[in-house]
């Protein structure tokens, strides 16, 4: 068996990346080792579990960074184009003589960037969790799940083919389920985990069928083959996939839309976003890792990975743009009304992912025209840092206050100075204030949108002002507003150094990563280009952002009754937004009333009362007939004699009249 296994892993090919390339396998294997070691040996590891997994993950970060260095600065480029390199492949299954599924690692600019982001944020979260999860009963389990998640997310971003992506996609979903439901004794956590899994699973159905469509028409699952044959308008698979149509759209459009539905589910786009706010039931570091920085951007990653194909199909790409912009605005409005700080951050995440999506949606393929693509991924990159920072800060705050509600907070700046500064910088970054990271990425998004779609541009501008407002609403409510009453609480400071260190590191990143000339590394066609910031163009968004901040300061800097007044004056609107536009209720109606009562119950009823009754009916008919026949045998001699004479008479008649 072992020999066979080894035989099936193709030897590392000669790599342009030199020795480092082969190490990419270790980036993925180390988190897996985490999962297996901690999962099996949790009894023996106990408190060492966290340290072990953190150390392993830091090794992975070092490898990822060195690979990124080699890829972007030394070996990755050939003739000015970033190459796609397959590091290793292991045979998994042949789905037809031509369709071989090889699990492996494929590096292109996008994957390398994602590898860095995922390992880096994951390591920060591991470090933070050492302190945050201390004393938990299932400490080792927690780190094992984190390992599983990191493994599957890395497998996802390094996937060589659509099926590997789908597999990791599902595994990511399951680890998310396990982590959201980590506090499994809380019914709300179990319900949230279930909801997250089922909603994304529903979206995954779209992804699965989309993959089936694309792979069937191109005869392969490999990203490269699929993209090549679907972008070459002369190829037979392109002709066949565009020639056939269903409900007025070509098969290609359907395939892409279904794939986007999969992405929208994971990335919490309208109307599949309902699981994300509930997912905040999980431990806060988990929210920072999964529900802010990595897993939820998988949808953006997916669209970006297949962007060359999306760029050909206008309908699908437009859908991406509109869904993205609608989600951005929708979530931003809801975020203004929520009082649970993690939920505010969750909606903010949804809104920012909406930004990335519509940036992809308005982008074109190739060169300067592909600015939207670079901008979307740039925003993904910067967002990972400041949003995970926000979540970790929120985690630190919750650790101290033991509550998620804004009203229990206020005036925390003196108790937690590091967290305060980190949170402030993250807020400035997300609000798009220069020179923090979010400014640069948002700026690129806005300029790409301005060029291609004015309508979305206006929505985006408005959303960015709202973003600034609700983020600072959060900031002021937590750290200023009223003074913190710490008599009721047992005060244990900001936490250990392991909790502060990740905040500081991420703070530096959130402040600095904006200066990376991102489009020189990541572009839609892998040709680097230079994108400049236009000072004149960026004035408007920054001013709007500052207006939002000022408004938030006006309302929430000191405790006052202005917010209540405003709420009272727009009560209906406020309530609608507070109840998240009743989308949850709509879903509840659909699932409870239509699916449960309308489909599942009748199905169970039919099975029990019709199908099964038919089977039982056959049995009872047999019994009835036999009972009837049995009654003829009464044991009464005279009856027998009667039958006998009747029989003779009938036979006699027959002989006389019928068979003459």
């Amino acid at each position, binding site marked *: *068996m072992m020999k*066979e*296994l080894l035989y*099936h892993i193709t030897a590392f090919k000669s790599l342009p990346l030199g020795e480092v390339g082969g190490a990419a396998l270790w980036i993925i294997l180390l988190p897996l080792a985490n999962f297996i070691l901690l999962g099996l040996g949790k009894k023996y590891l106990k408190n060492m579990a966290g340290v072990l997994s953190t150390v392993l993950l830091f090794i992975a970060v070092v490898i990822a960074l060195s690979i990124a260095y080699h890829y972007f600065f030394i070996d990755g480029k050939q003739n000015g184009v970033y190459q796609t390199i397959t590091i290793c492949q292991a*045979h*998994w*299954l*042949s*789905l*037809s003589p031509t*369709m071989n599924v090889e699990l492996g690692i494929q590096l292109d600019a996008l994957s390398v960037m994602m590898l860095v982001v995922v390992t880096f944020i994951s390591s920060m979260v591991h470090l933070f969790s050492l302190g945050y999860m201390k004393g938990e009963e299932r400490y080792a389990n927690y780190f094992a799940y984190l390992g599983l998640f990191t493994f599957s997310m890395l497998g996802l971003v390094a996937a060589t083919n659509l*099926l590997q992506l*789908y*597999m*990791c996609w*599902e*595994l990511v979903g*399951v680890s998310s*389920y396990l982590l959201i*439901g980590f506090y*499994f*004794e*809380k*019914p709300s956590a*179990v*319900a949230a*985990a*279930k909801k997250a*899994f*089922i909603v994304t*699973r*529903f979206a*995954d*159905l779209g992804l*699965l*069928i989309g993959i*089936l*469509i694309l*792979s*069937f028409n191109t005869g392969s699952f490999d990203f490269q083959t699929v993209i090549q044959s679907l972008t070459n308008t002369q190829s037979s698979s392109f002709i066949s996939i565009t020639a056939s149509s269903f409900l007025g759209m070509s098969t290609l459009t359907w395939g892409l839309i279904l794939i986007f539905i999969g992405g929208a589910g994971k990335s919490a786009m309208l109307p599949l976003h309902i699981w994300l706010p509930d997912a905040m039931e999980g431990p806060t570091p988990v929210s920072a890792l999964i529900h802010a920085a990595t897993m939820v951007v998988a949808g953006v990653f997916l669209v970006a990975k297949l962007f060359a194909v999306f760029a050909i199909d206008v309908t699908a790409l437009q859908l991406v743009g509109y869904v993205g912009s609608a989600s951005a605005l929708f979530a931003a409005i809801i975020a203004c009304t929520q009082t649970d700080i993690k939920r505010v951050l969750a909606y903010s995440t949804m809104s920012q992912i909406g930004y990335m999506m519509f940036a992809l949606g308005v982008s074109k393929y190739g060169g300067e025209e592909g600015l939207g693509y670079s901008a979307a991924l740039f925003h993904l990159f910067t967002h990972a840092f400041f949003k995970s920072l926000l979540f970790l800060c929120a985690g630190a705050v919750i650790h101290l206050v033991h509550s998620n509600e804004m009203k229990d907070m206020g005036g925390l700046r003196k108790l937690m100075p590091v967290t305060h500064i980190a949170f402030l910088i993250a807020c400035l970054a997300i609000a798009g204030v220069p020179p923090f990271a979010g400014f640069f990425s948002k700026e690129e998004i806005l300029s790409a949108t301005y060029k291609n779609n004015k309508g979305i541009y206006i929505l985006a501008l408005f959303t960015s002002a709202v973003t600034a407002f609700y983020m600072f609403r959060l900031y002021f409510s937590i750290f200023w507003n009223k003074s913190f009453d710490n008599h009721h609480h047992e005060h244990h400071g900001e936490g250990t150094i392991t909790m502060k260190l990740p905040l500081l590191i991420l703070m530096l990143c959130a402040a600095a990563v904006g200066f990376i000339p991102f489009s020189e590394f990541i572009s839609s066609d892998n040709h680097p280009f230079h994108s400049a910031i236009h000072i004149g163009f960026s004035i408007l968004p920054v001013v709007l952002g500052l207006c939002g901040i000022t408004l938030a300061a006006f309302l929430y800097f000191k405790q006052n009754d202005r917010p209540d007044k405003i709420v009272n004056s727009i009560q209906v609107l406020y309530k609608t937004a507070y109840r998240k536009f009743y989308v949850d209720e709509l879903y509840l109606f659909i699932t409870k009333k239509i699916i*449960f009562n309308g*489909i*599942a*119950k009748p*199905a*169970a009823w039919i*099975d029990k009362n019709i*199908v*099964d009754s*038919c*089977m*039982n009916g056959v*049995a009872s008919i047999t019994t009835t007939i036999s009972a009837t026949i049995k009654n003829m045998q009464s044991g009464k001699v005279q009856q027998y004699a009667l039958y006998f004479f009747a029989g003779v008479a009938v036979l006699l008649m027959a002989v006389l009249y019928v068979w003459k």
Partner: protein
Amino acid sequence: MLLSSLVILPLLTVLAVAFCKELQQIRVVAFIGTLLQLALVAYIYTAYQSQSITQSNFLLERDCEWFPLLNIHYHVGVDGISMAMIILTAIIVIAGVLVSWKIKELSKEFFILLLLLSAGAYGFFISLDVFTLFFFLEVAVIPKFLLITIWGSGKKEYSAMKLALMLMTGSALIFVGLMGLYYTAHSFDLQTISKTLLNPEAQKIIFPFLFIGFGFFAALFPFHTWVPDGHSSAPTAASMFLAGISMKLGGYGCLRVATYLLPYAAQYYSPYIIALAAIAILYGAFATMMQTDLKYINAYSSVSHCGFVLLGIGMLTQTAITGAVMQMVSHGLITALFFAAIGMLYERTHTRQVKELGGLLKVMPFISTVFIIAGLCSLGLPGLSGFAAEVTVFVGSWQRTETAYRIATIVSCASIVVTAVYILRATGSSILGAVKNEHFLSLKDATWNEKLAALLLLIGIIVIGIMPYVLQNAITAPVVDIMNHLNANK
């Protein structure tokens, strides 16, 4: 002789068990007997592997006359598909004996019946003569009736009777089909019949008898109603055997006898099979959602999952049939694991109602983890066997481009969502959540035998999940043979 020993060994074990006196002796002898079975199967596998270079389809063949008057032979042999099924049987039988360790009441008879079942299953999978195949199929039916009526729970008499009668009806149909086959081809030999060109009209008449007959075993809609009642009334080991192997007898028969021998009719009836399979998949999944008893949940989900087997067979593409065989193996393992976990929970908590359970992960981490893994595997988590099998069926089904086939494929795909719903509902309220009943807190986790049983099944599931090509390589040659046969008889 090597293959025949597969049938003889369980029978010898039966004899040995019959002479045992004490409980301890009985179960140790039974366990050793099943271990020997596994060793024998492993040996047969190596013998098979060493021969598989040759061109012949069936290996380790042995052919002798049994009843010359009717040309009935005792003809055995294995190919990749039957090899896979034999390994599955060996694993499930061991696991079944291990989880029945605590049976005190009439334990001798229990193990004897269990071993008889395994003899029947082995005989079925190795037969190359359709009459002996039918003979062994019958051998595998009767003990089930006794297992359920004597050691069952709930409305066991009703369920046992229903199961036995419905399976007997299936057998009767199969028998009629076999007679048809015999009088058309004048032979009972699988290979001989496959080489003769049967009259298409005759095929059309014979096929429904055989397919529906085996369909009774494989939970073909609407002949699946014995499944929920039968499984839930049966004792744990019998449920494992029933869902893990018996339902596979049907799937194997549909493929090996009906589809392989009657290729023209298989293509003629393919749309109907697809329709029934797609209905079973989605409808079974929806019906599962409303169940409240853990065993009913797994039983209905078996209906849904076995639908994939029939869907794969009905699609008649190489990938889909490969997927169907993989699904048989995978579902056998998963459902056995699931029933084992449910049985362990029931033995401790004395309830299978989802509403009455809760928070068991805290009390019994091992069993609960096994339950969760079985659930995740059932909902098709990559890395476990269910995913590899289902995705193969999906990809194979998608290769049929006709609209009706596409609809059936999409309907079947949709079941992955429904499956997630019922699995997570069951897990959420029985394993997770707060501990609902005080007396659960004093319950003990799995014992060594239960752990061993679960691990054995888990290893199978994980190996197939991570390296499905191992299974696939084994079954490719016979599937290609079936495909060639189908293509030659368009």
